[in-house]
C-alpha cells in the first residue's frame, strides 16, 4: 500500500443562488484509504462528492481523480470509479439480478455479479423486485452496483442513513472488506461515530468549508480533552426529600472544578458533563462528590470523540 494521491481537489466553489454550498474546499486522498467527509446536513458534503464524481459542475476550482478531469473525461472516469448516490432508485419492478446484469453491460470490464451478490448477502433476493427490498437490502444492492466494474475508487454518499444500528454495523464491515480488496473508499456521513470507527482520515465540513482534517485519533487528541465523565444528580443525601430539580440548582459546579485533571464542567438540568484528563479522573470525581454529600446516578466515562471536536470547533452540536 503505497501512499499516492489519487484524488486532489483544489479550491472548490459551488453556489446555488445565494447559498454557498461549497466555499473553497481542498482535499487530497491517497490510494487505499477510507476517507470520510462528515458534517451536518447542508454542510456541502454531497455537492463536494458529486463535483468529484463529475455529476455536478463546480463554479471554480480544480478536481483530478486518477489523473482525470471529471468534467472533460466524464465517461473515461465512469469506467474506473463506482458511485453510490444519496438520492436514487431503480425501477420498482426491476429484479435484483436484472439490475446487476444490466449495469454490468454498461462497463467495458465488469466482475461476475453472481459472486458480488453472494458477497453482499443478496443471493436469496436475486429474483425479488426492487420495491420488495428492505432499506438495507436496497443499500447493499446499490453498493453492488457501485462495485460491479471493480472500481479503483468507490464513492459512498450517506451509505448508512436510514439503516438500523445492526444493518449499519454490517455495512461498516462491508466497507472495510471493500478497502481490503484494494479499493479506495470516499464516503460521506453525518454520523460522527461512523466516521470515527470507519475512516482512516476524516474531513469535518461546516457551511461549505473544511474546518478540520486528520485521522480521527489526532483530531480528538488535538482537542486536549481526552475524557468525558457524565452523571446525573439525585439530590444531597442530607436532604433526600428534595426533588431532583432542586438538587440540580443546589449543585455547585465549582465543587468539581478544583479536582485534579478537570478542565471544564457543564451542567444541563440535573445532567453534569465533566471534561478532563488523567487516568484517575473518575476516582477523583467520585471521591469529591461523596465528600460533598452529592448523590448521583448513571455515572459513565467516555473518551472524547468527533462530536466533541465538532462542538469545540463550531460551538454547536452536530445533531442540531
Amino acid at each position, binding site marked *: 500500500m503505497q501512499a499516492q494521491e489519487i484524488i486532489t481537489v483544489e479550491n472548490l466553489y459551488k453556489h446555488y443562488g445565494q447559498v454557498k454550498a461549497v466555499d473553497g474546499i481542498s482535499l487530497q486522498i491517497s490510494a487505499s484509504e477510507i476517507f470520510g467527509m462528515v458534517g451536518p446536513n447542508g454542510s456541502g458534503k454531497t455537492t463536494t462528492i458529486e463535483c468529484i*464524481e463529475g*455529476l455536478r459542475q463546480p463554479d471554480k476550482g480544480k478536481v483530478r481523480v486518477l489523473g482525470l478531469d471529471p468534467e472533460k473525461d466524464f465517461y473515461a472516469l465512469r469506467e474506473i470509479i463506482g458511485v453510490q*448516490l444519496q438520492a436514487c432508485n431503480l425501477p420498482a419492478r*426491476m429484479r435484483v439480478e436484472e439490475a446487476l446484469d444490466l449495469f454490468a453491460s*454498461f462497463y467495458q470490464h465488469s466482475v461476475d455479479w453472481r459472486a458480488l451478490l453472494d458477497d453482499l448477502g443478496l443471493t436469496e433476493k436475486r429474483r425479488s423486485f426492487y420495491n420488495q427490498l428492505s432499506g438495507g437490502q436496497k443499500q447493499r444492492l446499490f453498493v453492488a452496483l457501485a462495485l460491479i466494474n471493480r472500481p479503483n475508487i468507490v464513492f459512498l454518499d450517506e451509505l448508512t442513513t436510514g439503516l438500523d444500528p445492526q444493518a449499519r454495523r454490517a455495512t461498516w464491515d462491508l466497507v472495510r472488506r471493500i478497502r481490503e480488496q484494494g479499493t479506495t473508499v470516499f464516503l460521506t456521513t453525518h454520523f460522527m461515530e461512523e466516521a470515527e470507527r470507519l475512516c482512516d482520515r476524516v474531513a469535518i465540513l461546516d457551511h461549505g468549508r473544511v474546518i478540520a482534517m486528520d485521522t480521527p485519533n489526532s483530531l480528538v487528541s488535538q482537542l486536549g480533552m481526552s475524557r468525558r465523565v457524565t452523571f446525573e444528580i439525585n439530590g444531597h443525601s442530607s436532604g433526600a426529600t428534595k426533588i431532583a430539580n432542586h438538587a440540580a440548582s443546589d449543585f455547585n459546579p465549582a465543587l468539581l472544578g478544583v479536582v485534579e485533571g478537570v478542565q471544564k464542567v457543564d451542567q444541563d438540568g440535573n445532567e453534569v458533563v465533566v471534561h478532563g484528563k488523567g487516568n484517575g479522573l473518575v476516582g477523583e470525581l467520585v471521591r469529591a462528590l461523596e465528600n460533598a454529600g452529592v448523590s448521583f446516578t448513571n455515572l459513565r466515562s467516555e473518551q472524547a470523540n468527533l462530536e466533541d471536536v465538532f462542538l469545540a470547533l463550531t460551538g454547536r452540536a452536530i445533531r442540531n
Partner: protein
Amino acid sequence: MRSFRKLFLVQLKLYLREPVAFFFSLAYPALLLLLFGYIYGNEPAPEFWGRNFGTVDASVPAYTGIIIGTVALMGIPIDTASSRENGVLRRYRATPLRPAIYLAASVAVYLLVALLGMLILVVTGKLIFDLRIAGAWLNVLAAFLLSALAFFAIGYIIASLAPTARIAQVVGMVIFFPMMFLSGAGMPLQLLPENLRRVSDFLPLSYVVRLIQGLWFGDPWAELWLPSVILFGIFIVGTMIASRLFRWE
C-alpha cells in the same frame, strides 16, 4: 451494443409488468374495435367512407393512431418524467451509459409495444370481422414508423419540459384526449359538425390517421404528400428539440 440489447430487454419486461400501461396500449384499442364492430358490423358502407369499406376496416388504421398517441403522449412522458423524478435516471447517469443508447433502447421498446398493439388490433379485425385492406402492408408499416417516431419526439419534449411526473401526466392527457376525438382517431370525422371538423387540420394526430388510413385504403403516397411532409417535419424538428432538451435530472 450489449448495453442497448440489455436495456431494451429489461425495459420491455418492465413495460409488460406494468398492467395499466399494458392495458391502455395493447388491449384497450382492441376492446374498442370489438365494441364498435359489434354495434356497426363491417358491411361495406361507401356512402359513409366514400369507398367500399366498412367500419372495422376504417377503424383499425384509425385506432392505430390511438395506440401511437397513447404510447407517445401518455406512456413516454409519464415513464420518463417519473424515472427522472425518483432518481432512476440519476443512477444511470453515474455509469458510462450514453444518453443516446438509453434513448434508442427506450424508443425501440415503445415502437415494439405500439407495433404489438397494432398487431392485436389487426388480428382481432381479421379473426372476428373479416378485415379488408386495399393498400400494401409495407406502406402501412412505413407510415406507422414515421408517425410513431414523430409522436415519440413530442412525448420526450413533454417529458423534459414537465418539472414533475404528475405534470407530465396532466399535460399528456390534456393534449391527447381532445386530439383523440377531434382527429378522427377515436371516432370518424364524418360524425363531427363541419366547424369542429376543421379543428382537425391543426392536430398532428389527424395527419397520422389520414396517412395510415389513406395507405390502408390503397391511396398512393403522392396523394398523401401533405400528411407525410407534416409528420416528417415533426419527426426531424421534434427529434432535434427532444435530444437537446433531454435531461437525466
